[in-house]
């Protein structure tokens, strides 16, 4: 079974220049070409400018960059603390954006219900999904994430870039809340896919690359050698993300 047998949809990639360093691939044509060569036909992308500087400005840069590239699916970065919900709603609807990514720590606010709640209520009505970065410098306190996500079970949450430093919290969190999903881009644990399948099944696992920080090819090689049935591999590499974007819950 090869991932080249069907399209792979990457749930975690960035597109655009960074202010603090140069990355190998920051132009849409180059990104599409590199990902295609790696076996990835479509990628959900956000703009790195939107993280340290301007969310809506970065989102506009993103829309400009993905124009004419149907392989690049835009994801908006928002600050639940300072962005205007009406402005975000209008821009998301106009661009067909179905997922949001938040950086509470970088944007200086706690991920708590009295800040995030109104946004999540809107996202639930629109059947949108939320990406929350973890990794070496997690963007949320796990207790805040649990308490807030628990109050909004109709908003799927994707833990982006979960890394071994997050493992102790990620395993029980996946078990505790069935609308928590896991981007696999940094999930390197030995036998990790087999253990996750036993732990929570495959329907909440999403292939992600963390491109251009990480080379996506080795992880796709790994997934092809996990003994997964075709349906399982398709679910991780494409179908689970397609379902989230379509506003459907895990089956």
């Amino acid at each position: 079974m090869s991932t080249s047998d069907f399209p792979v949809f990457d749930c975690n990639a960035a597109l655009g220049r960074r202010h603090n360093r140069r990355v190998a691939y920051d132009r849409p044509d180059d990104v599409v070409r590199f990902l295609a060569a790696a076996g990835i036909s479509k990628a959900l992308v956000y703009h790195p400018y939107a993280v340290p500087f301007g969310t809506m400005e970065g989102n506009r840069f993103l829309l400009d960059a993905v124009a004419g590239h149907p392989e690049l699916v835009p994801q908006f970065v928002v600050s639940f603390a300072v962005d205007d919900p009406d402005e975000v709603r209008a821009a998301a609807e106009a661009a067909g954006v179905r997922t949001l990514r938040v950086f509470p720590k970088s944007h200086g606010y706690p991920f708590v219900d009295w800040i995030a709640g109104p946004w999540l209520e809107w996202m639930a009505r629109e059947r949108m999904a939320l990406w929350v970065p973890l990794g070496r410098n997690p963007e949320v306190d796990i207790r805040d994430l649990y308490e807030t996500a628990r109050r909004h079970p109709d908003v799927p949450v994707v833990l982006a870039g979960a890394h071994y430093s997050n493992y102790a919290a990620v395993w029980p969190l996946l078990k505790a809340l069935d609308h928590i999903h896991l981007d696999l881009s940094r999930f390197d644990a030995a036998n990790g896919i087999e253990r996750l399948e036993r732990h929570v099944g495959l329907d909440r696992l999403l292939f992600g690359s963390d491109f251009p920080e990480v080379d996506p090819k080795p992880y796709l090689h790994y997934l092809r050698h996990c003994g997964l049935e075709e349906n399982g591999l398709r679910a991780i590499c494409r179908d689970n993300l397609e379902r989230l974007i379509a506003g459907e819950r895990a089956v």
Partner: protein
Amino acid sequence: MIIDFHAHVGSMDSIGARLTADAMLHAMDAAGVDRCCVFNIFHADAAFGNDLTARFVAAHPDRFIGFAFVTPHYPEEMEGELARVFDHLGLQGIKIYPPYFDRTVEDAIWEPVFAFAHARKVPLISHSDGRDPLVNPNHGEPQMFVRWAEKYPDARIVLGHAGNFRSGRLSSIAAARRCANIFIEICTSWREIGSIEELVSGAGADRLLFGSDLPLMDPRIHKGRVLTAAIPETAKAQILGGNAARLLGLAA
């Protein structure tokens, strides 16, 4: 033969690093790994950890190769413990982990370990890291190993993680180019684009070793980094096992 040069036995639960021998064998089999070098670096009583390693290896001697560990907090035990495990337990290499201690690898307290590796002509693998504000003070910057490599040319010094991120990788390459007895082990959670190609072109495929950091990381991922790299097939074979077999005195 595919040889994983970097794996742990024992528990580090805070980062999910705990697997039984059967689970480690599952990961190895899934990756097509024939042999795996293992060490236990978690016990302040190094002898206790080394005994655990020896027992772990004894249960599967055709699959695991044991490495010794010593702690600089008990320098008076270092040489005797190394002699004990090499002469009586059959361990075949040494692992040190400077970040666990308030001792950079430049510290003279490590000298007996490098001297032992030189005298016995055995491999010594150490954690290595590039310079990074998050890793301060840096206890295993690759250039720090040059002093020992030059003083003890028969020690086969292996830089675990290839310095981890790019600055460390470039420093690892420079160290390997300077010292013929410095080798580079590739596993890292950074997994940057082009990292294997850069190591091959910089240090040479004959100086690189495949490793996984099992059970922290899956060997299929790091084998995948080698197999999907734009390097010659001969280089892949060297990295995945040929070089390690040479260092360990095994038939490739």
